[in-house]
């Protein structure tokens, strides 16, 4: 059984080529972009927003709705570190644990004066409407620093795909889904992934602290070496 799983993975690797250090490439590209930008001396050119790094999930343009009923683009989450998970509010098992894991991360990083946000994006657009999200936030005590988002199925599928989250509705009530917490830098690039439930958050916390120590500014971003060490960079499986 094990062996076959390995064979599947091996087949995948052969099929698609070794993943390689893609994250690193992105960082090079991104530094290049920023270098060019500041190199112009910033005079009369209108202040165009710095281009998003190639790895940014803020390139996704589909609209989402907050639990206050406000329509936003994911890019509006930018400018601060975000800790993001995809859950559904009717979930009785894994999702409360994921929220618990996020709270634990929050506790451990302490007060960051709003430099770190926490986001729950719903996997279940059919049942998680704005009112339901608001009620869930209230009941669960998710107040300042937390955002709950919903979007149509197609946008949910897209965000999950971008984050490397797999999910499937298995009944009227339930989904199977990857248990994954993603840490996004202020540009929307995934710099760390916490996989599983009830995981020791040390690596996640230190990935966040590293960014906080470096100023957590949208640019320049930390060099590749600073990304959550030992964390799977692009594939949680």
């Amino acid at each position, binding site marked *: *059984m094990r*062996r*076959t*799983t390995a*064979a*599947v*993975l*091996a*087949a*995948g*690797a*052969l*099929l*698609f*080529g070794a993943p*390689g250090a*893609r994250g690193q*490439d*992105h960082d090079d*590209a991104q530094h290049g972009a920023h270098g060019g930008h500041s190199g112009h001396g910033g005079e009369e050119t209108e202040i165009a927003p710095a281009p998003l790094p*190639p*790895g*940014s*999930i803020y*390139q996704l343009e589909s609209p989402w709705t907050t639990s206050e009923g406000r329509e936003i683009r994911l890019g509006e989450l930018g400018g601060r570190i975000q800790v993001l998970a995809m859950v559904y509010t009717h979930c009785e098992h*894994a999702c409360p644990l994921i929220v618990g894991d996020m709270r634990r991360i929050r506790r451990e990083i302490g007060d960051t004066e709003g430099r770190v946000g926490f986001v729950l994006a719903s996997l279940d657009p059919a049942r998680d409407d704005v009112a339901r999200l608001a009620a869930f936030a209230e009941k669960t005590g998710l107040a300042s620093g937390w955002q709950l988002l919903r979007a149509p199925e*197609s946008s949910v*599928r*897209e965000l*999950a*795909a*971008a984050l*490397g*989250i*797999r*999910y*499937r509705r*298995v009944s009227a009530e339930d989904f*199977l889904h*990857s*248990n994954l917490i993603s840490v996004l830098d202020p540009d929307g690039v995934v710099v760390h992934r916490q*996989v*599983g*439930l009830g995981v020791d958050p040390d690596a996640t916390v230190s990935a966040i602290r590293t960014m906080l120590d470096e100023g957590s500014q949208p640019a320049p971003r930390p060099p590749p070496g600073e990304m959550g060490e030992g964390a799977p960079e*692009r*594939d*949680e*499986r």
Partner: protein
Amino acid sequence: MRCGSALLAVAALVGCAVQASPPGEGAKTAMAAIEGGRYVPLYGDGEPVEVASFRIDRGLVTNAQFFDFVRAVPRWQRAEEPSLLMGEGYLRHWAGPLEIGSGAKAARPDAPVTHVSWFAARAYCDWREKRLPSLDEWELVALADESSRDATDDPAFHQKILDWYARPRPDPLPPVGSTSRNVWGVEDLHGLVWEWVEDFNSVFVTGESRADGTFDRQLYCAGAAATASDARNYAAFLRYAMRSSLQAGYAVGNLGFRCAADAA
């Protein structure tokens, strides 16, 4: 045992890159109307899944058609750097961002476009005011052979599919419509390239499920062994294994797509 060797065959299918060529018209845009129905997916508990009626492109999207798209929507042209949306290898079989190429080894304009990410495939379908088919839609229409809407009980049908999985991919790829046409009039579902579906990421790798326990074991060796007498599951198993190894940015040489739409 069986799993292992077949997966090696899958691996052998891949890996070679297609080279480039000149734009042209290869476009069959007509869609086939597919009557909804039930099918039993490989995953899950053996219960049939209901699929609503839908429409699907008869042909795979070609290099020429995709060329029209990137010309019209420049943000999907190949860039210097790979990105989240257009991974390593995106359109690398073309001579340039706006040039399919020419020469014996070049990609044919009328061949299916490959080296496209899921994001790009989706954007193309959206541009055509369509969408990617769902996994269940794709599997439903792929049950058919030339004469029957459901060929699952015909061993020859599955053998043909497995034979294709075992053959090396021709380089460059042949034109769309060159391998098969099923009773719905949909071409090349088996025999040319693998295809993106909207919910490719609904398929799990078992390794990932360790924390959660139980699900999807039947998908992997236990399941494949239990049903090894059933070639149908075996072919489907290979497709699921392939999908479970994908990430949305991947752009590889044996993976193309076609678009679908809700029933008219």
